[in-house]
């Protein structure tokens, strides 16, 4: 189908200076169909299998959709007010805020640290990078299996190691005992998975920094710390911004880690876990969709805010 609309240059392409516009002759009038032909398959998939289901789901947020108690009918913002009255949900909101705060901070810090560790060339560097991205490449169900073996109060590696080196004399409770410790430990598991990507993003920005900048700074007698503060940090901002956005999207949607490691407990339940409970256990799909809508909007707004605050285009 594409061959029928050939050879017309795209109207948008600016000819290189000093060259005539390539084959400028316009053979046919009418819209250029080639780009539409190229994006049509994509559009069909995205519209049919993502946007339409999403619109369907998100409009249900304004309906009373209780499978146990039909019929479905419009109920305005009732689902949203019901959510605001749900005490467990409010706790989950606070938990999720903590996950986001800890996760974005920790993955950014660890990401920068890992990126700087592999910034310069050394023997075996590509193997170290390969090891670094490994956690990112693994399926989520395996991640749960792996970390259960580490934090567990009765058989976990962490307990065993602490006892072996003599830091504690008997197994301790880590997950579930204290709300904030629980959240921290759960979030570490997620950071394990998302920090590799943060590291790569920062690494890309790092490698764009011209070496002369550091040399000049060294000549001026700057300490390593002040070089980091004055050169590295400002110049890796684009990478850091994108790393923070990806961390933000993933932490805001955290589900598997708290569910596997801490059950449904209010000490660690997240917002997306509540959508699951509300939709799949209470069978109140209207409220579930309402909460999904809230999460989607929060994700978009927060991402936008991070980009506005952190992202700066860098000129070297």
């Amino acid at each position: 189908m594409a061959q029928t609309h050939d050879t017309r240059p795209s109207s948008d392409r600016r000819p290189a200076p000093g060259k005539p516009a390539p084959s400028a002759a316009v053979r046919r009038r009418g819209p250029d169909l080639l780009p539409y032909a190229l994006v049509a398959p994509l559009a069909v998939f995205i519209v049919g299998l993502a946007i339409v289901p999403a619109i369907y789901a998100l409009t249900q947020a304004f309906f009373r959709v209780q499978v146990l108690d039909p019929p479905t009918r419009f109920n305005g913002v009732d689902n949203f007010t019901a959510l605001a009255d749900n005490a467990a949900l409010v706790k989950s909101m606070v938990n999720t805020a903590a996950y986001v705060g800890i996760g974005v901070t920790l993955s950014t810090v660890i990401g920068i640290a890992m990126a700087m560790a592999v910034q310069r060339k050394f023997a075996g560097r590509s193997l170290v990078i390969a090891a670094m991205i490994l956690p990112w490449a693994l399926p989520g169900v395996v991640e749960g299996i792996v970390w259960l073996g580490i934090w567990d109060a009765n058989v976990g590696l962490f307990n065993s190691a602490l006892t072996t080196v003599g830091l504690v004399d008997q197994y301790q409770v880590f997950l579930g005992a204290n709300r904030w410790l629980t959240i921290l430990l759960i979030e570490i598991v997620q950071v394990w998975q998302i920090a590799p990507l943060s590291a790569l993003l920062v690494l890309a920005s790092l490698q764009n920094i011209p070496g002369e900048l550091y040399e000049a700074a060294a000549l001026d007698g700057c300490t390593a710390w002040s070089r980091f503060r004055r050169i590295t940090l400002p110049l890796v901002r684009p990478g850091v911004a994108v790393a923070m956005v990806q961390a933000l999207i993933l932490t805001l949607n955290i589900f598997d880690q708290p569910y596997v490691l801490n059950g449904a407990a209010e000490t660690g339940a997240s917002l997306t876990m509540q959508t699951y409970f509300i939709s799949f256990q209470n069978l109140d799909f209207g409220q579930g969709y309402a909460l999904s809508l809230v999460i989607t909007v929060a994700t978009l707004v927060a991402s936008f805010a991070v980009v506005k605050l952190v992202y700066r285009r860098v000129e070297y």
Partner: protein
Amino acid sequence: MVRSRAVRSMLVAGCVLALAACNGGSGSGEPLSAPTSNVTISVVLASNPPSKAALDAFTKETGITVKWTNVDWDSLQTKITAAVAAKTYFADATNVDWSRVGQLGKLNAFYPMEQLMDTAAMAADVPQLTSFTAGGHVVGIPYDASFSVTTINKNIYDKAGVAVPTTMDEYTQGLKAIKANGAVQYPLNIPFAAAEGLSTYWYQTTGAFGGTVLDDKYKPTFTDPGSPGYKAAQWMVDAVKQGLVPPGNINVSDTQGQQTLMAKGEVASTFSDYSGMIGSLYDDPASSSVVQQVRYLRTPGAAGPGPNNSNPDGVGVPRTAKYPKAAAIFIKWFTSAENQADWAGINGVDKAIKGYPLPSHVSAVEQLASKGQLIGGKELAEMLKTSSRPIFPGGAPSWYPEFSRTVYTSLHSAAAGEMTVDAAIKAIADTANRLSAGG
């Protein structure tokens, strides 16, 4: 242009969806007249399949081929809910857990089993059938007879010089004596992780204190500090505070507690354990270091032997099934007394289903017990016959999952010291009142 194109394809897709909504999924013809032989039915359960030989014999006898799919319990509930919500076929026979009976019954998501087979004739030999009745209909047939039962490690009790308890007081004093004696540091296993096993534990403890958690109108009966439910919650949380329960249990689920505490001899007793655990875990040398040390106990109630709550697994036929009658023939075969005895290993390990707890037919249990094939069989048969009873006499309410979630998250918080027992009880009661009024 692109806009109108996008709008058009959106409309098309929207129509498909609207169609889906109207059509409701029930597709081809009348399923009840679908053939019952020379068909392949899909069976999806959170259980291992019977031996291939057994399934082949069933096919030979009936002309029905069984395609068996094993899905873990949590994931299976998600699948069932998704299928019900989307009104979609996914299996001809699948799990009906006792706790979902009310929900699935109200949704009318499963065929009433009394229309597909003679459930009345079954009732006498299958006491737990009552747990599967909702709104006068039998939603599923129990294929095993799991119930809550107290287990103790006899060696630890002997070592500490503590006699086998028969009442709640003796039981509690015994645990304190074991702790004081130092036989084990934390004698009692309560799985305080915020998961279903914690709710189950509370119901059983409430039973031991002589009551139930909801009355027959599903109103809470545990708000008074003198009520069995309140006392049970207090007893469980006190056990943590008095150092009877391992501190790590705050995040231990029922299965983890059995494997890492009971089976390792780290604790002396689990008040609300499951029937069949001795045979399937504690006496299995590959996973246990307490082989032949654990015993089942008649529930040490406030005043003598208490009840044993049923929590059996059932199997039913979804409304969307393609071959409901063939599925019913399969269920009849799968849950028959003689086959259950096979699943439990009466004719050797080749015919047994790994992890199968206990037949739901009393006659099968007695047969196993008399042949000495069932560890603790005598006690179990006796309990199944005399003291096992449904947690909710009228069947689990349709809002059970939400209620139970409040139970286990609140009790978990109380044990973690995040709220008082009184506040936890109040939270559970508020939820029960709201749900029973609305439902």
